[in-house]
């Protein structure tokens, strides 16, 4: 009997790859072990399970009386305010983003350092924490939703302008050349070739950012910048778990509905 058929040929061994992978694995494990050191896991409160249970009970027995009571401080009004903060904040950032996007798009400049510097500025704006911006604006315009709007408006520029500039870079040159060939000025080129080409992508990205802003707007209230976050943190502090439950439910429903609507619109756009 010929046994050579039953035996598979030995797998070729790539030592270089093997060493690379083992080093990476060891590094990763070392990183994880280092992370576990110095973190006090023993400090979990004895009541943790009880409170978690209470929050869950609260979510399943929400405080329905809070949904709407006409006082302007109920769930519906606060959610509405959150949506308004996100809407206005996104609008402001979309406008500020446009010039930044042209700055950071490398196809629009002859010198590499122009677009590179634009990209760095956007990266810095992106990493500036939103909460700190909100607190700074609270100092400037007082606590309330206006501070939230401004914080969102400035923070979103970092991400939105990056997305916009990528769209500009991906743009087809044809229409620009056509307008230039017909004798259009630089302004004409931007107005009649670049912007109309760009518009669907701009709207789509702005809608996507609106989704993200809704989540941020529901968080900024934790530091007093308006929206649903404020009643939530109060309810958490006073241990009103029914109310925590209904607010969480409200946030989830709001985010899901808005995601769904903007997803439908985006699908139509593209």
């Amino acid at each position, binding site marked *: 009997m010929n046994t050579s058929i039953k035996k598979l040929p030995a797998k070729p061994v790539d030592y270089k790859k093997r060493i690379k992978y083992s080093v990476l694995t060891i590094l990763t494990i070392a990183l994880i072990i280092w992370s576990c050191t110095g973190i006090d896991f023993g*400090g979990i409160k004895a009541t*943790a399970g009880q409170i978690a249970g209470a929050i869950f009970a609260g979510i399943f027995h929400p405080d329905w009386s809070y949904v709407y009571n006409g006082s302007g401080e109920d769930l519906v009004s606060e959610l509405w305010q959150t949506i308004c903060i996100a809407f206005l904040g996104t609008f402001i950032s979309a406008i500020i983003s446009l010039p930044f996007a042209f700055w950071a798009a490398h196809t629009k400049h002859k010198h590499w350092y122009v677009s590179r510097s634009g990209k760095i500025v956007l*990266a810095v704006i992106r990493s500036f*924490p939103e909460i*700190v911006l909100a607190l700074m604006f609270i100092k400037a315009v007082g606590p309330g939703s*206006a501070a939230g709007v401004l914080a969102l408006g400035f923070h979103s520029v970092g991400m939105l302008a990056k997305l916009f500039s990528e769209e500009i870079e991906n743009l087809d040159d044809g229409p620009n050349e056509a307008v230039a060939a017909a004798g259009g000025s630089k302004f004409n080129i931007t107005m009649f070739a670049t912007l109309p080409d760009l518009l669907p992508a701009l709207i789509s990205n702005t809608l996507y950012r609106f989704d993200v802003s809704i989540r*941020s707007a529901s968080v900024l209230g934790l530091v007093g910048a308006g929206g649903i976050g404020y009643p939530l943190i109060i309810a958490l502090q006073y241990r009103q778990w029914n109310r925590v439950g209904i607010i969480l439910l409200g946030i989830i429903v709001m985010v899901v509905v808005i995601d769904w609507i903007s997803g439908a619109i985006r699908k139509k756009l593209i």
Partner: protein
Amino acid sequence: MTDSEQNLAVLPKKKLHVMNLIWLLVFIVGLVISTNETHTNLSALFANFDQFGDIFVQMLHPDWSYLGSVIPLLLETIKMAVLGTIIGSVLAFVYSLLIARNIVKNKIVTSVLRFIMNIIRTIPDLLLGAIFVAIVGIGPVAGILALSIFTFGVVVKLFYEAIETIDPGPIEALTAVGANKLQIIMFAVLPQVMTYFISYCLYAFEINVRASTVLGYIGAGGIGLYLQQTLQVFDYGKTGTIIIVIILVVVLIDYVSSKSREALMD
């Protein structure tokens, strides 16, 4: 002028889309309503702009002597991000295998599990942080738990979609030779999706580093704690130090992780 020359001279008329007008109208109404609702008043901003600018100027004069006390909390922040990412990713790994329709054929199970995942995905990280602070108390454990749940939501969504788009050939081949579910996953599914999984974990890690820097503000551990303390006592020089350190770390980690993601995908 001949007929065709006349046609050339006149550009085709642009069609007026009624829907576009309606959208514009809806948009303007939305703008007016939200401006009223949020009482946003740009003149108020400009009236107090010197104060705003003042904070900024103070932040631009960072207090470097504060750096020594910032570093330990910064390390704690990174540790939180690492642990949150690991725990969340491991959970996401198992969960994704359970909701991928080409592995689990039972539609009811996958639909229910997907519904749960979608709900978890909607909760922002800071809200999770606030809730976990209420449950386990102030400290990094609350932050790690919040980041774990948050990572879970991010990675599951990306990973199960990657699993569902794999080549069905190897699965069929293994089924044909009589392999069980575990063997199919081990030898047909995982080799095709492992690089995607690691890439998504790195991506989640980037997000988590950003998120963990502010979690401390609500008491969930890390450098955010100092953010809150220095802002409360109006010590903007120290706030500036913290923010510069945060930005440096975030940019550095973003760079390293996006480079390793690129290397992974080749």
